[in-house]
Structures are given as C-alpha cells and as structure tokens.
C-alpha cells in the first residue's frame, strides 16, 4: 500500500484514490491514538514526579536525613566545654526527665548552683502529684554533682534548702576539690532512653548487682529487680494495663500528646518533648513515620500501647523499680531521681539499654488525685512484695538491638535565670 501511495501512477487508479482517501484518516487515527497514549504517559510521569516532590519535601521539612543535629541537639555535643559552674548545668540538662519536659531552671553563682522546679513544665495529669517532676530534678542534680567532681569541685548538695519555697529544690555549693572524672560522668553524653527492642540475651546477675550498687551513699532509696520470667511477665502485664488505662483517660491522653513533637518545626521551636526519633524505630519505619502525615492522638495512643505490648514488655530482659518509704516525700523523690540517673548512666557504661516506664506510677497518682479506688497501687505493691517500700519509678533494661537517638534539649541560656 505504501508502494501504491508513492507510485507516480497511482493517482490514476480508482483503488489507489480510495486508498489515499483512507490512509490519511487511518494515519490520523493512529497518530491520535499515539497522542492519547503519549499524553497519558506524560501525565502519569508528571503525577509520579509530583509525588516524588512531595516525598522529597517531607524528607527536607522533617529532617529525615539529619536527625539529631542542629540547635535542639547542640547541648549533647557541648556539655564538656565550660570548665566552671556553668559547665555543671550543661551536664545537668542532659539528665533523664519525664516526657523530656525539662522541668527545671538554674541559678548559677560563683560559689554554686541553685536548682529550681519550673512549675509550668509539669506534665499535667500524667504527673498528678508532682512525683515525676521531682524525680527528673533529682536526675539533673546527680548529673550536676558528677560534672562538678569532674571539674575539680567538691559538690555539697542540700535538698529543699528552703522548705517554705518548694520550687527551690536544691542548693549545690561548689568548693575546690580533687578532679574526679568518673565513668558515670563520661557516660552523660551517651545516656538516652532506649525505647527500641532489646535482644533475647539475659542481663548477667553481676551486671544487675553492679547497677544495684549505685544506691551507695543515697539514703532512703532502694531498687527492686524483676529478672525471672514470671516476675517480668507480671510487671509487663501491669505495664500494658496501665498504658491502656492512660489512653482511655481522655485528659491523660491529651496531656501526653501535648508533649509529643510530631515534626521538625515543632522540635526546633520547643526543643523539648518526645519525638519520633526517640521511639526506637527501625530506620525505614522511622523515615516512613516522618514522611507520612502526623498521627492523630488516637493513633499515637494505639501505637504506644502496641509498642508497650509487642516491644517494650516483650523484649525487656529485666525490670527495675526504685522504691522508697513514702512516695509523697520530695526529698525521697529527689534522692530516688539521683539513683535512677546513676543506674541509667551505669547501664550506659555497661552497654545496656534502659527505658523509663512510668505508666503504672502515673495511674497510681491519677487514681489518688481523683479519689478513685486504687487499682494499680495495690497491684504494684503486691508485685514488689517488700513491706514498707513503695514503687517510685520503674524501668526496663536489656541489650538493645539498635542505638538510641538523641532527644532535643533547650540551650543553657533558656534554663539559666
């Protein structure tokens, strides 16, 4: 047919004329089909590129490729810089604390450091009776003391130096003494709550004993360990039950959500709170979590309960519970916080992961504050089974599958007044 079309004589033939009349239409149809298909292809390509653009923007905007760097994380790399009293505060602000609320501020003088509670930084109904804030402050005081010794100071700690002023939680007088750079001090910058899975390896009893030995020189506090399978199962079940109770309590759920920073802008703005980076997720899962739209409170609650059930309790090699005679005594709370920080630092030195698990004690205080019948207090007391000793704070330990990531911290200038 093509030959006919190109033949000089072809136009003379009626068949060829017909063919000529048909061919352009056929060609036009073919071109049209090709155009349509091409248009669909180009449109699809455009949509795919636009989608890739959205993905790329989320990666850029949420800091997927550079988690743990920038101003909110600077405190983790500069805490050794200052050799004076200010440096002790730089170490103090890296301490463990409830929901990374950083409930503190400091007053630095030539002769020491005063530590204050920052009441607006309480975590609401999650800390109904102020227990967790005191524990967090106790952790900060311990870091401060370790940093003072490492800088050649002899720290003299007075807890609640002015009983009439409960926000003034500690005075740390600094006088010159020997330089003591301890292993615990060196671990301050590497200590992070590890909420990821732990391996199935058991923690040797020597390691547990070494952690328990941190109680030395701290009066009125002790640690109760749960290392057997039955003990861990019982504590784990109560942890899950408490997590479910918190998510079912609208106000506690809202108060927890208020301290969750879902994107990089929030982290940069507040420089506090819990983040996706701190959840111990696998790298790919973490990236997807950051790229996808932020979770709702309900979805976040479900995620936490699921993680508690399938990761936190399932892979805990052991639980530890700090116990005291009176959980409402601020001095015992602060001292318990100091012990908790020491244990966490010692665990870091030993290569162990540690996660603070506050849900049971948060429910105990919530029930007490609301005047409801106590359900979690007797259950936890029964597990601890040590008359006269009450649970102050709980945690799990184990050998972590992956390293914990940094949590954001407010800079020194924001916490010194």
């Amino acid at each position, binding site marked *: 047919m093509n030959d006919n079309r190109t033949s000089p004589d072809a136009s003379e033939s009626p068949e060829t004329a017909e063919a000529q009349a048909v061919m352009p239409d056929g060609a036009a149809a073919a071109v049209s089909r090709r155009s349509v298909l091409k248009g669909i292809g180009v449109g699809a390509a455009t949509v795919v590129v636009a989608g890739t653009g959205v*993905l790329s923007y989320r990666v850029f905007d949420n800091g997927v*490729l550079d988690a743990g760097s920038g101003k909110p994380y600077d405190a983790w790399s500069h805490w050794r810089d200052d050799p004076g009293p200010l440096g002790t505060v730089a170490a103090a602000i890296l301490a463990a604390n409830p929901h990374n609320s950083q409930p503190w501020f400091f007053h630095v003088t030539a002769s020491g450091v005063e530590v204050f509670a920052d009441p607006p930084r309480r975590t609401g109904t999650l800390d109904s009776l102020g227990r967790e804030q005191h524990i967090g402050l106790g952790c900060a005081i311990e870091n401060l003391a370790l940093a003072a010794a490492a800088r050649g100071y002899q720290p003299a700690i007075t807890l609640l130096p002015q009983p009439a002023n409960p926000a003034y939680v500690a005075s740390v007088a600094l006088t010159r003494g020997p330089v003591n750079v301890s292993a615990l001090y060196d671990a301050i910058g590497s200590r992070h709550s590890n909420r990821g899975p732990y391996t199935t390896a058991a923690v040797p009893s020597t390691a547990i004993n070494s952690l328990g030995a941190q109680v030395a020189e701290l009066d009125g506090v002790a640690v109760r360990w749960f290392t057997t399978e039955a003990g861990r199962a019982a504590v784990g079940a109560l942890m899950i039950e408490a997590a479910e109770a918190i998510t079912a309590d609208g106000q506690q759920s809202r108060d927890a959500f208020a301290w969750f920073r879902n994107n990089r802008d929030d982290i940069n703005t507040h420089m506090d709170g819990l983040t996706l980076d701190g959840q111990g997720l696998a790298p790919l899962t973490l990236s997807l979590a950051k790229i996808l739209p932020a979770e709702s409170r309900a979805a976040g609650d479900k995620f936490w309960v699921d993680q508690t059930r399938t990761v936190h309790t399932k892979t805990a090699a052991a639980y530890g519970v700090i116990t005291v005679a009176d959980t409402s005594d601020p001095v015992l709370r602060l001292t318990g916080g100091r012990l908790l920080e020491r244990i966490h630092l010692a665990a870091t030195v030993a290569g162990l992961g540690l996660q603070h698990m506050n849900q049971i004690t948060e429910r105990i205080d919530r029930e007490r504050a609301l005047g409801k019948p106590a359900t979690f207090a007797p259950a936890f007391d029964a597990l601890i089974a040590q008359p006269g000793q009450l649970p102050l704070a709980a945690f799990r330990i184990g050998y972590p599958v992956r390293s914990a990531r940094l949590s954001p911290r407010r800079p020194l200038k924001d916490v010194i007044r």
Partner: protein
Amino acid sequence: MTARLSRQHIAASLGLAGATLGVLAGLIQATAGSRIPDWTGHKGSPVALGLLTVLLSLAALAAALTLRNRAPLRPSQRVLVAVGLLVPAGLCFSTVGRLWYVPGILLLSSLGLTVAAGGTSELWPVIRRNWIRGLVTLLGAFEILMAVSAGPLVTIAVGVIGGAVLVVTPWLADRAKPATILAALLIGTLPFAALTYWSVASPVLAVVALTLAFPAIRRAHKRDPAQNA
C-alpha cells in the same frame, strides 16, 4: 518600545529586585538564622539552607538579567527564564521562612509578566517538547533540596553534586555520547540513593529519574544520531 518589550522589562526589574532581596535573605539565614528563628522559619540547618537560597536567588538573578534584553525573548528563552524564576520562587518559601515573602512575591510577579510578555500559545510547543527533560531536571532540584537538609557533610556534597548533575544532564543528551549521559545519570542518582537508602524518598527519586531519563535520551539520540557521532 512595544507593550510586549515593556512588560518584559518590568518583569526584569521585579525579578532583579526579588533576586537581590533573595540573596540578602539567604545571607541573613546563613549568618543569623538561628538568632531570629521566628523570621527564618526555625530551620535546623540555617547555614546550608541560607547558602541554597543564595544559589537559587543567583539563578533567578541570571534569569531576570536575561529579561533585560533589548529585543523580545524567543519562546524557548521565555520558558527558560520562567523556569529560572519559578523554581527559586517556589522552593525558597521553605528555606528562609518569612524572609522570603517579599522576594517570593516579586519573583512570582516577574514570572507572571514574563509569561504575559508574548503569546502564551507559542510557549506550549516548547514546553511540550521539553516536558520530560524538565521533569528530570525538577527531580534533580528535589535531590538538592533533600541534600541540603542532610548530614554529614559528605552526604550533603554527594546529594548537591548528584542533584546538579541530574539538573543539567537531560539538556546535554543530544550533545554527548550515550555512555557519557548514562554515566552522568547514574552518578546523579545512585550514590545519594545508596547513602540515604533508608529515607525512602531518595531511592524512589533515583528510580523515577532513571525511568524517565533513559527513554528521553534514547529518543534524543534517535532524532539526530549524526550529532552524537
């Protein structure tokens, strides 16, 4: 002076003003961004983002300078200038926070006048002809955007260089040997994707870029094999 040329020159003035302010905004972000976060968008990497803003603003400046031509630009030139204004104007809203409001609006106004400085119908054939190459270039810009928010420095460097290679490669397709273009595409995509595979986005970008670029390059070489000899 024709109305067309007049619009083009107004577009040039707006573009020059916007690009100059953009350079200034980038310098402020890079040097003082962390001290004025409410203005600069609370960015985690103000220095890198500031420098990216400066680079993009310089691209916009080059585009705006082209508009100062004494003769009306050809359609292909207008498309190129429009892209040179659009990409910085759009991207920098996310790099320097509120500091981009004025430069961004000026550049977008310049873009509008550039498009209006002649028949819009004459732009379509140019756009249609270069659409896929433009998409690949856009992917290169996305790679650069991801890279400047990355860390450590080696990842930033690999991403920025790779993205830049991806931006220019489609436009060299009919001037270089296929093997060279193929190598450039692989260099532009794979190293950054490998370094940041866990980000999901960079491997996806690499696959999309290679999928789009290969047929486009093959077509370019089929069109004019003599040029590639």
